[in-house]
């Protein structure tokens, strides 16, 4: 069978798993590439004779397609699927060929074929491992300004996209009894065995098609059927079972505690257009009772000079391109191997009609049976040979080989002309997920690789992932693993013919006849790390494999050393003269392969990034043109500017309205907790600093709450509705943590108290009506309540109706004015608000926002927890010593208040500041010092916590925490300003209505 089609010169006329009825076309560097559905971008490129697909990271050497799977280090393409759908560093081997893709090679300028940075290759003797660390040390400031930008321009992979990603991504949680990762022979056998139990089985595989190595096995028969037929039968059986979920195109990339596995499923990159509503990717989080890891193994290249030319690839990958994609990677192929698996690839290539030569580094005695079989097919087999190098530039043209004897004496060179080379330096089981599960891999000398050791979680490995390369053994091992995972007894054997070829002798770095220290035999293709770099690192004293990794960068970047780690370990082991197990292995961290940010973000973008909490009155405020501010997840109206007003003017107007007439404010975000039970008062006594037993039902009290450390935690007005029922309010931001704090004490310390707590934050909306005319505004709306001063004094609560619906009406005044807080059930808030607003029109009722609220409370010296306190402020510091009920036997934080440090005279205490220049509004956070001429660093006495312009006072006002502040009343101190210092006088922290007489409002005038 010879390649025939003109459009795809290297495509066989028949065979493979591609769909020849569905041609696809895409662009590579502007050239149209023809392929078929079922192709990867890599197989389509090879079908068109394209090997050169990129430039290497450091030396800008021409590079081709090395592998056929996720381990691909070279063929990293920038892929665009349309506007906004471009991303870099896609492995050409994993991108499915689809119509309209635009792919480009990376890391070169001006073009892939003529790249000026290839000069780095000539400088290679200078830019060895650790070059940057040794060279770019001085002058120090040059690193950020010159060296790093220059290095990044010269080396580095693709360009990050800049447009918004228009695709959708979603998350999905799933649970199953058995999760099988990998659907090669072992994984399928495991799934078949487990599915028989009727338990829930999920099978995930990173490939577009399930089947793993069976997809390109053209020679084996399983139980008398061809591998292809057996695979089709197995998949049909699994599909027919309702308890089995098959997930192709799904990469399990992270194995976390409690068998929590993260996987990413690719949904619309592949060629089935379907619905545009389909997300691009789905991040699965699977909680599995048992896991079977059938993740296979990665082939390793051989290390010799110039082993990185385009056209040099993995032996098994050649087999995959031949059998699965019906593509000839070349017409004259040389295989170089240190193991038996490449012999099957060579036999398949010969069967496809290609010219094949086999070079084996093992002596004839080590591979006699296999070599004899190949020779019988008419293939030249050179055993006991080494590879000295390759020739060609943009593509390999020949392989230089020579015989070697037992003492590594090299015979005469011979160059074998070729257009493709298949390397096989053994196999590395993919133990990544096992390692992430906290299992410790153990070294197996015979296969020169780490395999899974003792399981830490409920998982087991099977097949090549466990170092079992024989097909019959892998199938049986998979079956047993699946059966055990599903809690079934039973083993099964599989009749496989012909037996798998599995002989192998490790060859770390092929012997050469030139100065080995000058040879660049690459082990890590992606990071341009050669064997001599690793040896140099060891010579320079880096003995830990982790240090060698970081010094040489071997095993880093997008492929995370899938093809190179074992080679590096072997070299370190040889250089140190220590066995591999003592050298150890680097840690495998998630993700196994790169995961898009979109998949991780999932739905959490735009409006769904975070829940934005709004009150029932939000839309009204929006309609009034309010400017909002975030307070935690809440959005609160900050001020209501009228046409042409800035914030300063709007806030001044809002404050004036409250002081002179009446304002209306949405306080619905206040936290609210209903405390119910016969021990409610006792509970309140313990959780707050002040006393509650004597508070009569129908009355309110300001409550102060400390943490165990004695510092202020939260505050708020509390109403006693009945002997056994309190309506507690908390700060907006503190609502959740106060409830948690209360529950914590109730459940762990005082479980004998008969009290229950219920959050009613969102049950009750709060309409604050504040100002001298507040009573007149609400009077026409309420029923069942006497609003007179005698019947309903300041700090009282009444239950009645407003606008015909139930209300808990509080008479409280955070503004210092006569005021009410109308609590109504949330769905009624909008109607009641509009009624109050309408009723207030005759008095000039003015909606005000949080900014005016802050000014009004600061004028009266009321603190805001979290603004005027910072978790290190005691009640005494805040001027709230009177809030501490000294006679109470205990309350949370009481003991801490007795510590000597908590009563020290120089503690920072809350004071007011009056600026010498009345118009100057200090910056919140400004530092306060005694003498601005003191040498720097000068002692800071404290800082400004609240600072506003006060229209009522006609000057600025500020609250501050100042060391020994109470003793400094009248002193002049200095606050920092953007340009220097401003003189301030320490005053009492009350600026307006010093005796609090205004809470009587129109009663006072009545």
């Amino acid at each position, binding site marked *: 069978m010879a390649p025939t089609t003109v459009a795809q010169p290297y495509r066989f006329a028949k065979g493979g798993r591609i769909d020849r009825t569905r041609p696809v076309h895409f662009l590579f560097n502007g050239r149209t590439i023809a392929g078929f559905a079922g192709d990867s971008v890599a197989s389509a490129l090879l079908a068109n004779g394209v090997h050169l697909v990129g430039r290497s990271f450091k030396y800008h050497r021409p590079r081709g397609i090395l592998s056929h799977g996720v381990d691909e280090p070279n063929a990293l393409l920038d892929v665009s699927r349309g506007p906004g759908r471009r991303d870099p560093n896609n492995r050409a081997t994993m991108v499915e060929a689809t119509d309209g893709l635009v792919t480009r090679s990376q890391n070169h300028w001006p073009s892939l074929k003529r790249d000026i940075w290839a000069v780095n290759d000539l400088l290679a003797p200078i830019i060895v491992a650790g070059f940057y660390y040794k060279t770019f040390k001085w002058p120090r400031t040059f690193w950020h300004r010159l060296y790093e930008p220059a290095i990044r321009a010269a080396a580095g992979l693709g360009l990050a996209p800049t447009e918004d990603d228009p695709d959708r991504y979603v998350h999905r949680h799933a649970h199953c009894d058995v999760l099988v990762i990998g659907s090669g022979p072992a994984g399928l056998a495991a799934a078949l065995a487990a599915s028989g139990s009727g338990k829930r089985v999920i099978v995930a595989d990173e490939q577009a098609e399930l089947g793993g190595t069976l997809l390109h096995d053209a020679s084996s028969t399983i139980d008398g059927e061809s591998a292809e037929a057996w695979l089709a039968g197995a998949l049909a059986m699994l599909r027919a079972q309702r308890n089995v979920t098959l997930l192709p195109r799904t990469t399990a990339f992270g194995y976390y505690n409690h068998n929590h596995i993260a996987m990413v499923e690719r949904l619309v990159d592949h060629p089935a257009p379907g*619905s545009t509503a389909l997300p691009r990717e789905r991040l699965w989080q699977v909680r599995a009772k048992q896991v079977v890891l059938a993740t296979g193994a990665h082939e390793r290249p051989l290390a010799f000079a110039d082993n990185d030319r385009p056209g040099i690839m993995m032996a098994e990958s050649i087999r995959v391109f031949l059998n699965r994609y019906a593509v000839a990677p070349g017409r004259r192929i040389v295989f170089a191997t240190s193991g038996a698996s490449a012999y099957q690839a060579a036999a398949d290539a010969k069967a496809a009609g290609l010219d094949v030569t086999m070079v084996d580094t093992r002596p004839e005695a080590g591979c006699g049976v296999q070599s004899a079989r190949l020779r019988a097919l008419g293939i030249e087999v050179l055993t006991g040979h080494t590879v000295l190098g390759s020739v060609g530039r943009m593509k390999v043209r020949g392989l230089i080989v020579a015989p070697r004897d037992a003492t590594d004496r090299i015979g005469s060179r011979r160059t074998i002309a070729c257009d493709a080379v298949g390397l096989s330096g053994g196999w590395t089981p993919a133990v990544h997920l096992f390692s992430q599960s906290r299992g410790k891999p153990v070294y197996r000398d015979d296969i020169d690789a780490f395999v899974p050791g003792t399981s830490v979680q409920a998982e087991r490995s099977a097949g090549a992932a466990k170092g079992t390369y024989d097909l019959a053994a892998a199938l049986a091992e998979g079956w047993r693993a699946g059966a055990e995972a599903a809690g079934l007894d039973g083993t099964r054997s599989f009749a496989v013919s012909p037996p798998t070829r599995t002989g192998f002798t490790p060859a770390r770095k092929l012997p050469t006849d030139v100065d080995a220290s000058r040879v660049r035999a690459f082990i890590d293709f992606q990071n341009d790390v050669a064997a001599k770099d690793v040896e140099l690192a060891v010579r320079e004293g880096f003995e830990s494999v982790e240090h060698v990794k970081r010094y040489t960068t071997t095993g880093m970047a997008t492929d995370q050393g899938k093809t190179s780690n074992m080679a590096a370990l072997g070299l370190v082991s040889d250089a140190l003269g220590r066995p591999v197990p003592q050298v150890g292995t680097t840690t495998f961290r998630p993700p196994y392969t790169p995961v898009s940010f979109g998949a991780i973000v999932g739905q959490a973008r735009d409006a769904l990034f975070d829940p934005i909490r709004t009150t029932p009155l939000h839309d009204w405020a929006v309609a009034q043109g309010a400017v909002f501010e975030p307070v935690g997840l809440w959005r609160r109206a900050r001020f209501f500017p009228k046409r042409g007003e800035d914030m300063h003017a709007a806030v001044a107007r809002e404050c004036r309205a409250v002081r002179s007439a009446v304002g209306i404010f949405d306080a619905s975000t206040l936290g609210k907790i209903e405390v119910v039970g016969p021990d409610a008062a006792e509970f309140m006594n313990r959780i707050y600093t002040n006393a509650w037993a004597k508070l009569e039902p129908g009355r309110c009290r300001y409550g102060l709450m400390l943490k165990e450390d004695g510092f202020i935690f939260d505050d708020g007005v509390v109403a006693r509705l009945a002997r056994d029922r309190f309506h507690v309010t908390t700060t907006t931001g503190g609502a959740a943590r106060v409830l948690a704090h209360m529950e914590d004490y109730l459940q762990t310390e005082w479980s004998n108290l008969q009290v229950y707590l*219920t959050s009613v934050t969102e049950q009750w909306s709060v309409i604050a009506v504040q100002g001298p005319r507040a009573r007149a505004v609400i009077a026409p709306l309420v029923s069942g309540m006497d609003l007179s001063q005698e019947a309903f004094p300041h700090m009282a609560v009444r239950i009645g109706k407003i606008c015909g619906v139930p209300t808990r009406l509080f008479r409280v005044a955070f503004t210092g004015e006569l005021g009410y807080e109308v609590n109504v059930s949330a769905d009624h808030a909008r109607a009641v608000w509009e009624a109050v607003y309408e009723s207030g029109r005759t008095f000039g009722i003015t909606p005000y926002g949080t900014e005016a609220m802050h000014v009004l409370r600061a004028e009266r010296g009321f603190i805001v927890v979290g603004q005027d306190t910072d978790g290190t402020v005691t009640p005494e510091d805040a001027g709230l010593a009177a809030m501490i009920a000294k006679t109470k036997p205990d309350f949370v934080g009481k003991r801490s208040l007795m510590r000597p440090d908590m009563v020290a005279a120089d503690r920072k205490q809350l004071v007011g500041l009056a600026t010498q220049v009345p118009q100057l509004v200090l910056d919140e956070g400004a530092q306060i010092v005694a003498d601005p001429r003191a040498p720097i660093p000068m002692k800071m006495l404290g800082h400004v916590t609240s600072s506003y312009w006060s229209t009522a006072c006609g000057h600025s006002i500020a609250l501050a925490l100042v060391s020994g502040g109470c003793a400094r009343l009248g002193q002049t101190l200095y606050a920092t300003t953007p340009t220097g210092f401003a003189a301030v006088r320490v005053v009492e922290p009350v600026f307006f209505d010093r005796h609090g007489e205004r809470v009587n409002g129109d009663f006072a005038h009545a």
Partner: protein
Amino acid sequence: MRETLGVAWRDLVLPAKVPDLEVPTSIAAMGACARFSLRLPSAQARAVDQAGGFALSGGVNSAITSGGSISARLGPDEWLLIGPEEQGDALSQAIEVDLDGRFFSLVDVSHRNAAIAVAGREARAVLNAGIALDLDDAAFPPGSATRTLLGKAEIVLIRPGAECVYWVECWRSFAAYVHGFLMEAAREFGPHR
């Protein structure tokens, strides 16, 4: 301006209307309900069995439906009771009568929560976009209820009956997020656009 001096109208955070999405998955805001958070020591619950017609006999994480009411037990001593809106006062009085003399806490949370019904073949797939729990029949059978997270919002999930119908209850200020999250997750199952 609607009634200002008459009785205040009710303004639901998620107005009930035709389902926002239909086959094979429907997502629909539920109308107003009467809701109570009942706290009662489990020993007391065993003694009374029911209160105001709400069964208290179910185990933790059960939901018992009778008539138009649901009794969802969210913890050893916590129930979310849901009934017809117009019966709210009558229900609370009946509960108080039945529990008279015992230690309990009954708090009206009718307006605190909003509810969304997610129904249909793909209901579980939609919910599992944001809920980490196993919603399989074996793990979350008909008559189950639990407090959990949907994405970044706390919810109560109730499966009242045998069909694939789930109630998602959340605090009202999270309703827009929860509804939007469910709609987004359901897009791939909705009528293809």
